[in-house]
């Protein structure tokens, strides 16, 4: 059953990643995202039903959930014709990570953790949702920098590619971060409560996560604008990548 759901999800996302390359096929791409997302949602549902405990606590499992969250955020914010280039950025990344999740066994059923379900749902769920938001904000910021440069350089084809206005990209990126930071806060709180209960000490990964939280928190307080805001969001995303890679160490071991 899990096998049956993985392939349609990958096919949907893959079709979207290719179809977003051409404006004429962007509608088909949007349907690919929707179909793929439905199949992956069902896949996660089956994993949850067949696993005794929280099924996405492993590195590969969390990657599977992360891909679903990124695509969900994209479906909510950016799945519109003008955001075709955002799809072209997000969907190939989603396909690549989804394949990595499968190779690492994260799309299988039956994997579980010794940690309690509620803790994992709160901690892993919120942190991954926040990371998905930061990923989308970084993609939006990348687009902002690219389009701003084209406008500054007075590219003659600047109106040919249907792009969202700079103002919209900046606003959307800021809003996404504003939603993601409280999620990261909740995820961190859950983690620290658990840490205190177990009497464990803080590891390097947790320190990095706190630094990331501080970085994005400062972003919301300082409210940088224009290119500065875009570079700040991309800088924060570098920390997210480091954290994702560090998770391959055994944070939950």
């Amino acid at each position: 059953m899990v096998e049956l759901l993985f392939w349609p999800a990958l096919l949907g996302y893959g079709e979207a990643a290719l179809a977003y390359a051409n404006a004429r096929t962007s509608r088909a791409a949007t349907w690919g995202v929707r179909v793929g997302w439905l199949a992956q949602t069902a896949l996660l549902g089956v994993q949850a039903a067949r696993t005794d405990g929280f099924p996405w606590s492993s590195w590969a499992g969390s990657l599977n959930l992360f891909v679903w969250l990124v695509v969900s955020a994209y479906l909510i914010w950016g799945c519109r014709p003008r955001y075709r280039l955002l799809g072209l950025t997000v969907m190939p990344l989603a396909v690549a990570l989804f394949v990595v999740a499968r190779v690492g066994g994260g799309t299988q059923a039956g994997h579980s953790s010794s940690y309690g379900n509620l803790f994992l749902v709160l901690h892993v769920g919120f942190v991954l949702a926040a990371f998905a938001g930061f990923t989308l904000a970084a993609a939006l910021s990348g687009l902002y920098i690219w389009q701003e440069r084209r406008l500054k350089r007075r590219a003659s084809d600047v109106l040919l590619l249907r792009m969202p206005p700079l103002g919209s990209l900046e606003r959307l990126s800021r809003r996404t971060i504003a939603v993601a930071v409280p999620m990261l806060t909740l995820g961190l709180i859950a983690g620290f409560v658990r840490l205190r209960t177990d009497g464990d000490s803080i590891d390097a990964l947790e320190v990095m996560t706190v630094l990331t939280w501080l970085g994005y928190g400062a972003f919301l307080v300082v409210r940088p604008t224009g290119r500065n805001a875009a570079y700040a969001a991309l800088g924060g995303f570098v920390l997210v990548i480091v954290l994702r890679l560090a998770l391959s160490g055994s944070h939950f071991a």
Partner: protein
Amino acid sequence: MTLSLVGLSHRVAPVELRERVTLDRDAAATLARSLGDAVCLSTCNRTELYFDGASDVQAIASLEELAGESLDGVLYRRLEEDAALHLFRVAAGLDSLVPGEGEILGQVRAAFEAVSCGPLLDHVFSQALSVGKRVRTETAIGESPASVSSAAAALAAQVFGDLAGRRVLLIGAGRIGELAAQNLASRGAEIAFVANRTVETAKELTVRFGGRPLALDRAASVLGEVDVVVSSTGAPDPVLFAADIPERRHRPLFLIDIAVPRDLDAAIARIDGCFLYDIDDLEAVVSETLAGRRVEAERAEELVAEETLRFQAWRASLEVVPAIASLRARAEEIRSAELAKLNGRVTDAERRTLESVTAQIMNKLLHLPTVRMKEAAIGADGAAYADAVRYLFGLEEER
């Protein structure tokens, strides 16, 4: 029924001739009514008469009367599918001076709604309106700007998004500058200041656009209060320099310099958050987007061709529909007559069963010939098949 078109347009007639045959909406409707079942589409670029009838003598005479001269060599005439194809291209904006312009669709609608048409014109105009809408939604032909002034407004929207509430400083009273200001205002921007060498002229412009009049040398003092600057003076030297731009904390400033020689110091473009476009930049953007329009126009032509085929199929089906109706009526007549012979010999329940069974047999027998005739109608054989059916089933006398 025959769909005919007679008309002239910017492609074949000079403006001196077109202006003589251009009619307002009421006059166009009156002319259409004088021709019987007709629609008159009259804009600054074309005057066309679409009518149901094979003879175009009266339509040509009407146009020549308006022109006051013979229109031989200028008028074009189209029949049936060719006329429909022409109308669909017109409604899609493909026959316009600027491919994809959107105003023509409203003009086609107005011409159609000004008169009451018979079934042929009603169908072809309804389909033309739907073709126009389809082309606009399924292609990007109408989205890119076609003039320097509209490109300036589109670029400003690319920076700010919604222009509602954005404040504009208009410097100088150049014609293209005014058009750019008009375009910005039509997108919701507010003309906050008008600066000119003579304040009196600035005041005249504020009557039209609103805002506060300023002397030219005070333009730099309000740069902190605006989001867009449009400059088109005849000044020989720049009127704004990079040093005039105040600290804006990355709040973007979009500057359009339409003047030659240029009004705005080129060094402004290097300031963070400042986007400076001069007339050459804008013309390059327009020429690129017009090229983009041509690509979209190819897609639009495909849609129009598809719709013309649909019209063709509809027209062809009209030829076989009477034959199909006669055939079914004849079959029903025979069935009813045979059932009538059973009156008093069967019970009500038996009668209902017989009615149901005979109706089913009749429908099954006639289903395939009906489908085949409709299929043949789409090709060229519709009339021949219809005649054959009439002959074989003795329906000729009903024609």
